[in-house]
C-alpha cells in the first residue's frame, strides 16, 4: 500500500508530468483562462491515461512478453492510444456537444500528448503490475490536471499584467512553469 502511495505522490507531485518530466507541455501552454476548460482537459487526459495504461498492460502481458516481441511496443501503444482518442472523441461528440466544441482541436491532440504515451512507457520501463500502472496513471493524470488548473488561474492574472513585449505569452508561461517546478520540488521529502 505504501508502495502505491509512493508511486502516486511521486508521479503527481514530486516528478510531476508537466513541470518535472516535461510531458504534456502543449496543452499546458495552450490552456485558456477558463477554469472549466482546464478541468475538462485534465480529466480527459487522465481518463485516456487510465484506459491506455490498462490496454497497454494487457497487450504487454498477454501478447508482447509471451511472444517475445517487446520491441513492437511503441507501434502498438501509439495505435491503441490513437484509436482510444478517436473513440472518446466520438463519445463526447454524441453526449456533450458543448464540451466537444469547448475542447476543440485539443481533443484529437491528446493522441500526440507526450503524457499519454509517456505513462505507458513508464509503466513498461518500471514493470509495474496492473494496480501499480493504474495508480501511476491516476497520479500522473491528477498531477497534470493540477498544474493545468493552477496555470489557468495564473493565466488570468498574466493577461492584465504589464509583461515586457518579448516575454509576452510563451516565455512568461515558461517562467511560471519554472516557479511551479521549484515549488513542487520542495515536496521531495514526503515519500
Amino acid at each position, binding site marked *: 500500500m505504501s508502495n502505491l502511495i509512493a508511486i502516486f505522490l511521486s508521479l503527481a507531485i514530486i516528478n510531476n508530468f508537466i513541470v518535472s518530466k516535461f510531458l504534456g*507541455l502543449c496543452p499546458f501552454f495552450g490552456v485558456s483562462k477558463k477554469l472549466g476548460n482546464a478541468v475538462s482537459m485534465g480529466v480527459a487526459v487522465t481518463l485516456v491515461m487510465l484506459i491506455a495504461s490498462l490496454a497497454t498492460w494487457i497487450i504487454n502481458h498477454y501478447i508482447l512478453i509471451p511472444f517475445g516481441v517487446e520491441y513492437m511496443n511503441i507501434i502498438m501503444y501509439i495505435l491503441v492510444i490513437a484509436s482510444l482518442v478517436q473513440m472518446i472523441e466520438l463519445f463526447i461528440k454524441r453526449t456533450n456537444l458543448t464540451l466537444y466544441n469547448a475542447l476543440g482541436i485539443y481533443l484529437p491532440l491528446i493522441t500526440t500528448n507526450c503524457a499519454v504515451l509517456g505513462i505507458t512507457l513508464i509503466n513498461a520501463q518500471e514493470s509495474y503490475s496492473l494496480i501499480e500502472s493504474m495508480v501511476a496513471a491516476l497520479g500522473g493524470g491528477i498531477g497534470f490536471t493540477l498544474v493545468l488548473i493552477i496555470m489557468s488561474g495564473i493565466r488570468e492574472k498574466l493577461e492584465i499584467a504589464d509583461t515586457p513585449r*518579448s516575454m509576452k505569452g510563451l516565455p512568461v508561461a515558461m517562467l511560471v512553469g519554472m516557479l511551479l517546478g521549484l515549488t513542487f520540488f520542495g515536496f521531495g521529502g514526503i515519500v
Partner: protein
Amino acid sequence: MGKFWKEFAKGIVISNPLFVLALGFCPALAVSTSVDNAIGMSAGVLFVLLGSNLLVSAIRKAVPNIVRIPVFIVIIATFVTVVNLVFHAYVPALYESLGIYLPLIVVNCIILGRAEAFASKNPITSSIADALGVSIGFFLALLIISFLRETLGTGSLSVFGAKLFTLPVLGKDPMILFILPPGAFLIMALLLALFRKIGVMKCE
C-alpha cells in the same frame, strides 16, 4: 537545386522547430541536461524525420485520405522503433541516458507536423531538404540550450567523455538550478525572449 537549399535553410531559421514553430518541447527540454544527450536526440530525430518525410512523400499520391493519419503514425512509429533498437545495441550509454524520451519522438509534434504539412504535399527532394533543415534547426536549438544548461549547471562541458573545459568559479560551485527541470524552463524562457527581442521571431 536552388529549391533544395531554400527548403533546407528554412528549417534552420525561419521555421526553426523549437524557437519559431514552438513544437517538440517535451523531449527537447527533458534531454537538454547535457550536450551528449542533445547530439544523440538530434541524431534520432534526424533519422526518423528523414525516413518518415521520404516515405510519406514517396507514397503521397497513393495514400487514401481516410487512412492518411494512421498511415503516417505507423510509418513514424516504425522508424522510431528502429532508432530505439539501434541505439540500444550500439550506443547503450546514450540509450540509457535518453530513456523514455527517445521513443517519445513518435509523438513529437515536429515529425507528424512535417509529414502532414509538408511531405504529404511536396516532392521527394524537397521533403528530404525539409527534413535535413528542420533536424539541423532542432539540433542547433537544442545545442544552445544544453550548452548553457551543462556549463552553468555543472561548471564544465564534456562531449562523449572528453572534458572540453571547466569554468573557473562555477567549476567548484555550479548553479545546480540549471541542470534541474525548472532550469530548462528558465533557459527556454530567456532564449525565446531574446530571439523575439532581436527580431528573429515574432512576438505575440
